[in-house]
């Protein structure tokens, strides 16, 4: 059997898979935000990729921006700095994971796993900050302004994960395939670590 564990081939292979899986984010979106309302029988959706925002259906971003302008929300930019930084991060960490796999040193498997968790967490925090900024920093001359009981402008922050009513819309925000690949990469590296540790500790 190729994956005989004589030389921790299994752990190594798992780690190779772990390092490759995150690359799927170049194919599949990481996240999706969808807006539903009665007059949108086909909901409007924004797919967030590692290096781009794309329409769920043709022209969705343009139409979301048109809606957002009523409440004074900024336009969704064509590009953000993260679209350069995050792909580089994925490529670098994937390469790193691959070399670590070849070195077959299990403690590094764990470190890679932790590194990936930290970077992903940073990514999610970054996403939250964007959403916060979009939801709160509204144009003071917005056409539709709603004040709370204290006279402050009501914010329109979309949910980070989950569903929420925003005015006449129901907003849904959930991870997509890219994120699941990334998460499985992390998960595989953890398995690789345990398998390898078991192998080396036994020896």
């Amino acid at each position: 059997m190729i994956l005989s564990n004589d030389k921790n081939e299994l752990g190594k292979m798992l780690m190779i898979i772990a390092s490759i899986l995150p690359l799927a984010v170049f194919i599949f979106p990481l996240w999706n935000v969808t807006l539903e309302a009665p007059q949108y029988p086909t909901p409007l959706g924004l797919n967030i990729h590692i290096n781009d925002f794309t329409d769920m259906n043709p022209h969705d971003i343009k139409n979301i921006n048109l809606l957002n302008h009523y409440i004074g929300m900024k336009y969704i930019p064509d590009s953000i700095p993260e679209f350069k930084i995050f792909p580089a991060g994925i490529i670098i960490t994937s390469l790193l994971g691959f070399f670590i796999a070849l070195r077959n040193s299990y403690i590094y498997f764990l470190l890679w796993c932790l590194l990936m968790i930290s970077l992903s967490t940073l990514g999610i925090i970054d996403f939250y900050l964007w959403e916060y900024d979009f939801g709160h920093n509204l144009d003071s001359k917005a056409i539709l302004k709603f004040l709370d009981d204290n006279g402050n402008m009501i914010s329109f922050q979309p949910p980070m994960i989950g569903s929420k009513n925003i005015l006449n819309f129901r907003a849904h925000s959930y991870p997509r395939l890219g994120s699941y690949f990334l998460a499985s990469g992390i998960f595989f590296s953890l398995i690789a670590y345990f398998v390898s540790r078991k192998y080396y500790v036994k020896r």
Partner: protein
Amino acid sequence: MKKNNFKISIIISLMVLLSHCDSNISNSSGALDFDRSEQVYVPPGEYDSYYAFLSGGFSGQLSVYGLPSGRLLKIIPVFSVDAEKGYGFNEETKPLLNTSFGSIPWGDSHHPDISQTNGELDGRWIYINENNTPRIAKIDLSLFETTEIIEIPNTAGNHSSSYVTENTEYVIAGTRFSIPVPQKDIPINQYEGNFKGALSFLKVNSDNGEMNLSFQILMPGFNYDKAHPGRGPSHGWFFYTTYNTEEAYSLQEVNSSQNDKDYIAAVNWKKAEKYINEGNYKTIKTNYAHNIYNEETQTGETKWIKEVRVLDPSNCPGLVYFLPTPKSPHGCDVDPSGEYIVGSGKLSANVTVHSFSKMIDAIKQKKFSGEAYGIPILSFDAVHVGTVKQAGLGPLHTEFDNLGNAYTSFFISSEVVKWKLGTWEVIDRKPTFYSVGHLMIPGGNSRKPFGEYALAMNKITKDRYLPTGPEVTQSAQLYNIKGDKMKLLLDFPTVGEPHYAAAIPAGLIKDKSKKLYKLEENFHEYVSHSGLETKVVRNGQDVHVYMTTIRSHFTPDNIEGIKVGDKVYFHVTNLEQDYDVPHGFAIIGANTSEILIMPGQTETIIWEPKKVGVWPFYCSDFCSALHQEMQGYVRVSPKNSNIELSWSLDN
């Protein structure tokens, strides 16, 4: 064994699923649909219980539907030409479309309102405004035809129009766009203070419904959006919503939406009459068309009017007050009792209600919070009586039933919300499909609404009907409002984009509907009362053909002596005196249209032959078993030929 179990469980779960679907169909939607269809079904040969008149918006016309069936009965051409009916193409109706800008073939019709007596619908006339080239039309509800169109001077975007007072003393018009009055060549950025908003009062002749522009009030340069008359105790007042009290003139979607409150303008028109009678007005030069269709001659005529009386509210104390009203209000609606004035702030979630009696007290006690261009602004708290809170998003317009309930359309959240006058509590809400503009309850703009149905007029339909390319229909949705809960009964496509509607119990007008024009009462200049009176007369290059139609021939049916370059007027009189026997007249190469001549009517169409030859004409309305035989020929000779005019039937 295990595998088998698995299979069995799948089969069982499928069966459960299927049986669920089954019960859903029979128990809920099936029974409901049966109930709904029963409520809107009008069996063949039976009548609807209401006439509903829906404006056509950009179609420029007024369409007539039966309710509750939603069946289209007629499209009455008003502001747009209609080749089908010869409207705007025949000589009789051409004058109706005259304006100071020339003849205008298209209009944007908005807010039909039925004439009233003592605050109740009397079903004599219906008035409707044209937004683009400001005009108001009168439609005679015995003919279902446009019989008058008057141009409104000093106005642009004739939107807060054409509502009638409770004895049809006045039809009013108000400008949506303020403009320099009188017009002049000035930079647009000198808007503030230089642009004015004219509110027009058209006195109605109670015998024949004719309008005459009595006076205008020159208001500050805001946008006057919608209006409604007071009734009962508030009779004598008119209320208008305003927006753009910011007096912005660019990127209004943002710049007109900045003030937290705009105003409802309350105008005391009885006081205005007093100022006019006292001579406290200015006369300004203008020029506008007043077009009247004369029923005796069956022909429209244009009168040009050169001046208008104007009142300046800053010189007329007690004429106008401003009621602060949140968020660029659109609808301005007065309840049947005349006490509540409802302002629908289209950029908010709330509906604001003012009290007429509080307003009168506030005026007496001078509870003012400021003034704008010499017009007192009443303190909000002194006039405000209640708010329907968080009722929906983007309230546009409110109608009323006869039980003290109000119904507000919410554009943004796409729903109709029913609420209680006095307690301001929401009773029910129902979605519309989609983005409702206005609502209509028969008689909802009177002291006596008929609280049986509400009609929602939707701006967007998207997936509601079979797709028809990028352009899809607008729609109307009929709700049963008899119980506490509204019930959506019917969803039907409309003609153009209805901005408002008016409806009346069928019994109030159906028996007054004329069946035909009496031939002996036809005093058209070119009438032929019988085939014997027909003739062809040349006057230079103009040739007048006096023609008659009766089943199934034209008299004359052969005409010779017409020459290229002539202008041929076919004056066709339909000699029939039986219900629903119109004849049509169509001739090859006419650059005008066909005409459809009702029994006893005369209509005229111009034909300018360009080619030598023998050219046929025929009846374009299938009139009888021998309709296909109903035809004739015109011989067209070269310009310089000497052939004398001759005409014949059966020679």
